[in-house]
């Protein structure tokens, strides 16, 4: 009995502690970031291990060649059916789906989708489908975070901020790249490197990475020989690699999008076996070139370490582009991160081999170019240049090659941007009829600033003026609120409604300072976006805001009214002035 009471007491204390955690937003964010990081890390490690073990069973050492055709074909048939019948939202990479959930569905990803993605991707990748595990991991991680958030009955906004937290944890564990995972979650998923969830994203990423190390040990994704710049002439070769990598990226993206559009036009009833086209294609390629099957990281590592035959890497670059495009377009489950790295490594090794053959004394081994090529292709395909530089550094832990990597990445990114303006994940979403916000739309929204809409400083109430005098002047001007200033400058806004109330209450002879007390001085600066001005107007309850200097917050530069904003957006005609008057 006493033990039961003791347990009940402990339970109550625990519940109190949990309630305390929930009461404090910072504590809740901290706790959820850690929990989601650890859980997602464990799930992604299970995903990696399960895929690896399944693949080892499907392709045993010394296995017959027919397996290379049969296994991916059957694998895509089975997963195609599962995706069609049970998990329709688990198709494809997972990145566009995660962004869709974040921006359209209020962060909602169903548990069924998480399970479907896990199961279908494991089977699909193990059977040799030429796709990657990182994108699906991101969706699984984001989904788990979303499920936990909803189960805790958090608000939509809070569930939304858990999505990048889960994404970053998943990518940190899948790629063994905690910093790149943070950057990717902010750069690609959120589209904002200054997102306020940065702290939580970093924490979950670090936690997932620690879990990965706890279970799988301290191994980078690729072990790479220490390369270095042999001669400054090499910068030119790396620039050429950037060009080739960029062109290869564009070919890949255009082929994938084109094929996907064609598959989408096929009758609906073919959807469940469309993935077989991908499975059969990669199987036939795998008959001649087994390295085209699956993610291919083992082969990438060999190439990175200088095991390069020009003809083989050149053929594999082309085959992988085609295989991945067909596998993805036909609706198999899997991502394009891994294939991007594979394609980049092959392109880099090919360029490096030619360069080393022509200029042996001035160039590094082809493996160095394969390393840089990975980053170039990733920057060109995924279009996250900052993430790609950090990612290559993290997967190889080789700092010496970072400058050539940056050069190649930027060139590849630029070429890809010019020849394929729409990034792949946006284009995929557009094909599905979804318009996700992107960096350009966000920049456009922030483009119109207060300075373009504000009006000149109106007459400021002198400190000695009474409320009644101020109200009379305000009535004449038609402004909803007036700035109040003293010898040091503006310090408050006084609304006409407040003045009328004061007069009605017999305070008309008092000075504005007497009725304002110690107000919060809500203001905007000239470089603020109009959206922020609207938010602050809502918070102040006035239809006018003071515009003040950034150098001195008491220095009044002008006034911004709701009417000014509407006119700037073109909602109200320019000659329709002082709308507030009516």
């Amino acid at each position, binding site marked *: 009995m006493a033990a039961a009471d003791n347990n009940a007491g402990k*339970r109550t204390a*625990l*519940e*109190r502690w*949990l*309630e305390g955690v*929930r*009461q*404090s*937003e*910072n504590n*809740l*964010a901290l706790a959820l970031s850690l*929990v989601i990081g*650890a*859980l997602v890390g*464990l*799930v992604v*490690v*299970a995903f990696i*291990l*399960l895929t*690896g*073990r399944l693949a*080892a069973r499907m392709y045993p*050492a010394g296995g017959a060649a027919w397996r290379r055709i049969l296994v991916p074909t059957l694998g895509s048939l089975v997963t195609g059916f599962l995706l069609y019948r049970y998990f329709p939202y688990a198709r494809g990479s997972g990145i566009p789906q995660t962004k869709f959930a974040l921006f359209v569905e209020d962060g909602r990803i169903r548990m069924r989708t998480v399970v479907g993605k896990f199961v279908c991707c494991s089977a699909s990748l193990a059977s040799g489908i030429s796709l990657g595990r990182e994108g699906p991991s991101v969706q699984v991680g984001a989904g788990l975070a979303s499920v*936990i958030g909803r*189960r*805790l*009955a*958090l*608000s939509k*906004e*809070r569930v*939304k*901020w858990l999505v990048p937290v889960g994404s970053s944890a998943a990518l940190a564990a899948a790629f063994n790249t905690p910093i790149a995972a943070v950057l990717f979650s902010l750069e690609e998923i*959120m589209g*904002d490197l200054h*997102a*306020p*969830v940065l*702290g*939580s994203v970093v924490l979950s990423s670090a936690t997932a990475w620690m879990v990965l190390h706890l*279970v*799988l040990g301290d*191994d980078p994704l690729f*072990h790479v*020989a*220490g390369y270095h710049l042999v001669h400054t002439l090499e910068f030119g070769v790396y620039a050429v690699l950037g060009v080739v990598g960029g062109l290869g990226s564009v070919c890949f993206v255009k082929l994938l999008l084109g094929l996907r559009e064609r598959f989408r036009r096929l009758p609906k009833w073919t959807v469940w076996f469309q993935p077989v086209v991908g499975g059969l294609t990669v199987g036939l390629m795998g008959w001649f070139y087994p390295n085209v099957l699956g993610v291919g990281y*083992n082969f990438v*590592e*060999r190439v990175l*370490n*200088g*095991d390069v035959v020009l003809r083989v890497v050149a053929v594999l670059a082309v085959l992988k582009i085609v295989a991945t495009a067909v596998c993805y377009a036909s609706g198999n489950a899997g991502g394009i991160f891994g294939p991007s790295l594979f394609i980049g490594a092959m392109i880099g090794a090919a360029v490096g081999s030619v360069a080393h053959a022509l200029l042996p004394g001035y160039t590094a081994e082809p493996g160095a170019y394969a390393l840089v090529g990975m980053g170039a292709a990733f920057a060109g395909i995924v279009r996250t240049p900052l993430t790609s530089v950090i990612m290559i550094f993290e997967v190889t832990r080789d700092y010496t090659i970072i400058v050539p990597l940056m050069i190649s990445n930027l060139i590849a990114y630029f070429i890809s941007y010019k020849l394929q303006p729409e990034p792949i994940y946006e284009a995929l979403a557009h094909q599905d009829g979804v318009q996700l916000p992107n960096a350009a739309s966000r920049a456009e929204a922030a483009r119109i600033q207060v300075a373009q809409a504000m009006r000149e400083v109106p007459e400021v109430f002198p400190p000695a003026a009474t409320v009644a005098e101020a109200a009379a002047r305000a009535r004449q001007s038609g402004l909803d609120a007036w700035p109040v200033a003293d010898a040091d400058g503006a310090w408050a806004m006084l609304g006409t409604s407040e003045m009328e109330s004061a007069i009605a209450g017999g305070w008309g002879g008092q000075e504005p300072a007497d009725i304002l007390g110690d107000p919060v001085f809500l203001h905007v600066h000239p470089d603020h976006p109009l959206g922020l001005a609207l938010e602050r107007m809502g918070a102040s309850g006035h239809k006018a805001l003071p515009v003040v200097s950034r150098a001195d917050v008491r220095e009044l530069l002008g006034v911004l009214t709701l009417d000014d904003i509407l006119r700037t957006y073109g909602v109200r005609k320019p000659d329709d002035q002082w709308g507030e008057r009516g």
Partner: protein
Amino acid sequence: MSASPTTSGENVDKRAEAAGPSKLLGTFALVFLSMAALFAIDTFMAKMERSEKRREARRIFDEAQQLAAEGRNLEAIEQFRSGLSIARDNQEYELALARVLLDAGQLADAQTVVNEALERAPTSGAANLAMARILSRQGNAADASSYYHRAIYGRWNERAAEQRLQTRLELVDFLAQHGDKGELLAELLRLQDETVGDGALRSRLGHLFLAAGSPTRAAEDFREVLRQKPQNAEAYAGLGEAEFAERRYLAARAHFQIALRLRPDDPNTQRRLELCGQVLEMDPTRRGLETAERYRRSRRLMELALESASRCTGSVLPPALREMAGKAQAALGSRIRASQMDDATEANITLAEEIWQAGRKDCKQATTQAEEPLALVLAEVGQ
């Protein structure tokens, strides 16, 4: 995104409040249970994966070893690389790959592989030895010697003493070919203490001491071997070489004779024995010779020195040599009395020595085998 945990003014969501602490507790309990289960599954699968990978890598490694043993180095390299991509940090596989790369002449690749192994384990004896071999093949004697030393004082996982001894022996072999004699002698002295009781090693050391220019220590080693195995032909031959190096040709001849008796088909010992005989027959300073015989030998010595100089410089002798040749011809043509023979012998030997030195100075050819006894005798009398 405005509802950030750090920026928003709100504290508690109403829906969350409605969920209640029990649901919160239940959710966290479920999550932690899932995590515990996943951790167990992950650990199990990771262990299984490691075990399977180890087996697979071993299979590939064995195949690669087989290919290397058959001399199919390029195929072996391919297999070793496959094995290494599975068992990345396995030093045994890395060094085996480096060995085959070395055999295939791919020195730069071998060096890259060994460098990686050394980055992880800088004190590894095996990795340092592999690097020493690569540098040795590259002709970088100074660095090779340094890596040999690191290997000797490095860490060996098994049979450390034996591995260190073998490495030091390899080092002395290397120094005998490339290094300076002082360094070789220093290493041999360290080895001498480690090889007590091992006849074959002492015999090998004896030869190395000879190469290092220390015939006294070489003789000690060979005598030690003979104490253990009195009928050891190689030790007798070695002892003969040591005596020969000390210019004790009589003793050397005796030892060569015994060695030849024990191992009659040894052409090298036969050659050395003959050389000893030629030196002994030519040497005018040998004890116990009659005055006339000494004189005869001194004349012969002068004749041979002249022949050698003429062969070397051609028909037109340099002025200094021409003058010496004139003196020699005069000495050879003159008839002297018995009482003058001692002085004449000394003069002949001195002149022969001068002609030999002058001839060698202008000579562009190496000493021939036929000239070897003459060179040895003149070197001895010069002292």
